């Protein structure tokens, strides 16, 4: 097979016994046998199924909701609309705090009411009996015209919307800039400046100005959103849900429902794909329904509902002007980024602004970002949220400028690439990063090396692009306990969405010097697990992994202390190996972990149980970069693009589990390829989604994707366990630009919008 996986050389002769080795998933057997329980696989006595009625309109006044007929439908247990719920602490400006629409619907699919029945078919049938009277209002669908003065408004209370979400976005207050405070669809603005951008353009030998667009795309996890909630008479709320963020779900439920966090138990079930889209969505509505009926309620979104009413990633328009000197020095960058937030604030324009000017040293830049509301489903996170939109623009420009100046596109990037200490557009300096190492490695990839061979061949091209992500930070903790039989249990609070529990198994096995089979890892629920942040922002191994390492070291210390007392020696004279504590230099003084387990758990045992505790918090991020290369072939008659080869390089810092790291890299790259080639949520002029299914919303299939050449580089982070840095997100970022650059190389003209569909290729070629 053409695919070639190059893991760093030291994998074989590493100083480590467990970390750094390709390791099969701790939960693999459950998944290949179908025994792993996802939320929809769980069932409870007296459980009801919820079906939700969504608005058919993108923008309308809700004049009345009549549920009388639906309540009479045989088998229906309850029909619940906004009026049937207690007065919760709703924040109408925040999607997270809205259960059912009241008075006004703001996007197609917004929940209006729910039916509960033991039989999901009955609940579904009864939805049709709910009578809703709407007065359609103007649907605002184009974010660019929505910014103009005098545009119809997305919703009535727009100025309230702005203020309440501001703090979450590190943005500049709209009202501060626009002193009059006139209602507007602009939810927030952001502005970064450095140097004198016009002076910069004056020194440039090549100036490129272009507008780039990237479509609204959907995370399209294969498992739709799924939640079960139960509320008992003691006032305790239990939630089993497919979430990346169990503690965040708990906190949000507490805030809206007014239930203490200590009375909420959130269990993160196995997540059937999240990619940023499974943070908090179906939990609130399901919990609210369960509180009304005091019975377990299951709500599984249909694929159509998930496409219509989850939290996809935004459409963005990036207007970019860049200037480069003849020697390849980037001297000026001016950008205006407009992100379509949908009906509620939350579009990731801030990271877009950081990355459009954050990959290269540039003395003069001016970047403006706008988050604009429209009557579409509100957006959320998708793997490195906001980064791919901006990267598509800057990485296309780097290619165009290099081409115009006759420079090698990799050398032009290398010349300007940021390094440790260089500032982001916001001014913060980068910590140690491996961008240049990624550029060097991609130049050695098979795909990039084919460039010379492909050169001059009609309709074939090779392109390259980079991308990065800074990553999130959140405190984390872990517990490592010694069992009575000498096995080790690791307990964490982080949902395992990417193989992190396997990495924790490796870390604990490394510290305690035991085989992997002696270590098990459990993600506990929010009442039993030690706190962890959400599994998002690529931070889980970086933060929770660090806590696991500290907890394992704490457990080891406790074991050595006990053995030291037993042997009347100093802990310094002891070491662990093969599941035993050894007194150095005395082969007879050996205490097995099993014996230690008994000595700390048996009736009348002399020693206290071994419970290692690890907690951590850091303000230092460990950004990750990826460089990617593609070889494509274009059919000039149909515009179809075939990806003949694809390569990804990523700096992993230290790959604790190279098998997982490669999987993350390949998976992210494939999502980037979907963004590049086929994925686009399409809306009509009334704001209705035209492709709410997986036939018309085209994900990459095996027919689309060749095996991906995968190269890990390792520039250790300063604080991550064993030098690990963020892994999950950088891989999705460069795909759009990589394909755009390869297509331009193949056909000699630029397609400025992604996805680069056959239609757009033919338009660029002047054939449509």
């Amino acid at each position: 097979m053409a695919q070639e996986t190059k893991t760093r050389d030291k994998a074989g002769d590493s100083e480590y016994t467990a970390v750094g080795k390709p390791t099969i998933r701790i939960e693999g057997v459950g998944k290949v046998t179908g025994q792993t329980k996802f939320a929809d696989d769980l069932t409870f006595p007296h459980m009801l199924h919820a079906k939700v009625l969504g608005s058919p309109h993108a923008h309308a006044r809700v004049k009345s909701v009549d549920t009388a007929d639906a309540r009479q439908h045989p088998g229906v247990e309850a029909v619940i609309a906004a009026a049937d719920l207690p007065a919760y602490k709703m924040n109408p400006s925040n999607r997270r705090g809205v259960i059912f629409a009241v008075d006004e619907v703001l996007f197609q699919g917004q929940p209006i009411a729910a039916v509960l029945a033991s039989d999901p078919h009955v609940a579904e049938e009864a939805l049709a009996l709910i009578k809703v009277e709407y007065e359609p209002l103007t649907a605002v669908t184009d974010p660019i015209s929505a910014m103009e003065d005098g545009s119809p408004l997305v919703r009535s209370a727009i100025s309230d919307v702005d203020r309440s979400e501001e703090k979450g976005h590190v943005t500049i207050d709209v009202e501060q800039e626009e002193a009059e405070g006139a209602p507007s669809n602009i939810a927030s603005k952001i502005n970064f400046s450095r140097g004198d951008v016009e002076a910069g353009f004056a020194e440039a030998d090549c100036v490129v100005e272009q507008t780039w667009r990237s479509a609204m795309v959907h995370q399209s996890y294969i498992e739709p959103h799924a939640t079960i909630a139960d509320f008992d008479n003691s006032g305790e709320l239990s939630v089993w849900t497919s979430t990346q963020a169990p503690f965040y779900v708990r906190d949000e439920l507490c805030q809206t429902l007014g239930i203490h966090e200590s009375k909420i138990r959130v269990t993160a079930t196995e997540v059937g794909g999240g990619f940023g889209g499974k943070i908090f969505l179906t939990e609130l509505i399901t919990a609210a329904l369960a509180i009304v009926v005091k019975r377990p309620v299951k709500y599984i979104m249909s694929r159509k509902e998930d496409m219509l009413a989850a939290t996809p990633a935004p459409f963005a328009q990036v207007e970019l002007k860049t200037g480069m000197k003849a020697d390849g020095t980037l001297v000026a960058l001016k950008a205006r980024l407009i992100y379509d937030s949908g009906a509620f604030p939350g579009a990731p324009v801030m990271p877009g602004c950081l990355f459009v000017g954050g990959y290269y040293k540039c003395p003069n830049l001016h970047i403006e970002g706008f988050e604009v509301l429209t009557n579409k489903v509100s957006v959320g996170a998708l793997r490195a949220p906001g980064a791919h939109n901006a990267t598509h623009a800057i990485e296309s420009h780097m290619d165009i400028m290099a081409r115009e100046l006759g420079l090698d596109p990799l050398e032009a990037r290398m010349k300007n690439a940021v390094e440790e200490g260089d500032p982001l557009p916001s001014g913060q300096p980068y910590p140690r990063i491996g961008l240049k190492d990624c550029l060097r490695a991609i130049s050695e990839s098979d795909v990039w090396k084919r460039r010379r061979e492909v050169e001059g061949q009609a309709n074939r091209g090779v392109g390259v692009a980079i991308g990065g992500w800074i990553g999130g930070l959140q405190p984390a903790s872990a517990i490592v306990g010694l069992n009575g039989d000498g096995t080790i249990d690791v307990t964490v609070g982080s949902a395992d969405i990417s193989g992190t529990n396997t990495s924790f198994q490796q870390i604990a096995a490394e510290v305690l010097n035991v085989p992997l089979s002696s270590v098990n890892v459990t993600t506990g629920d929010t009442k039993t697990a030690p706190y962890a942040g959400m599994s998002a922002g690529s931070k889980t191994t970086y933060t929770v992994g660090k806590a696991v390492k500290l907890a394992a070291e704490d457990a080891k210390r406790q074991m050595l202390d006990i053995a030291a007392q037993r042997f009347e020696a100093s802990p310094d004279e002891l070491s662990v190996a093969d599941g035993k504590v050894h007194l150095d230099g005395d082969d007879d003084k050996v205490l097995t972990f099993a014996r230690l387990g008994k000595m700390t758990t048996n009736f009348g045992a002399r020693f206290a149980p071994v419970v290692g505790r690890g907690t951590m918090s850091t303000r230092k991020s460990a950004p990750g970069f990826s460089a990617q290369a593609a070889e494509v072939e274009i059919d000039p008659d149909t515009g179809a693009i075939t990806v003949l080869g694809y390569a990804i390089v990523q700096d992993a810092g230290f790959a604790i589990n190279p098998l997982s790291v490669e999987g993350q890299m390949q998976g992210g790259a494939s999502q980037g390829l979907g963004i590049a080639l086929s994925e686009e949520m399409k809306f009509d002029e009334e704001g209705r989604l035209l492709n709410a299914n997986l036939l018309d919303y085209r994900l990459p299939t095996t027919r689309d994707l060749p095996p991906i050449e995968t190269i890990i580089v390792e520039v250790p982070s300063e604080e991550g366990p064993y030098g690990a840095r963020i892994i999950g997100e950088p891989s999705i970022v460069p795909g759009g630009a990589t394909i755009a650059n390869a297509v331009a190389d193949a056909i000699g003209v630029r397609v400025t919008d992604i996805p680069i569909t056959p239609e757009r290729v033919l338009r660029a070629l002047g054939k449509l």
Partner: protein
Amino acid sequence: MGKVNISFTINGSSHQIDVEPQWTLLEMVREQLHLTGTKEGCGTGDCGACSMIVDGRLITSCCMLAPQADGSDVTTVEGLLANGDLHPVQQAFIETGGVQCGFCTPGMIMATKALLDRTPKPTLDDIREGLAGNLCRCTGYTKIYEAVMTASGQEI
């Protein structure tokens, strides 16, 4: 509408049951037989997560009505274990990292089994054709290609 009485074999065991005529095979298997290994990803036959093998053919069980299974021989992912041992396809998916979130995995494994049943030594093109009806959002398919090559005893 009354229930329909149907007989079929699933994973080697015979059943005669009454089933709602509008239920899909997927619903019957998950809700009535409590075999929850097979997943529903889209309900419209587009993602392949619900793949089963019926009378030797790979089908999307969300698009087949339960009464249509009358007289059929059905295999789901639960039917691949032999005396508690993993099927070679299952073993290969674990070893190569072809499993990530695990939601497409049961369907992907059934599609792989169907492919290898008719093409024991598939080429990369055969694999890319044979699995084209099964979406995976996590892996980018590279390690799934490796899993199929491994399961068929071929070099990666």
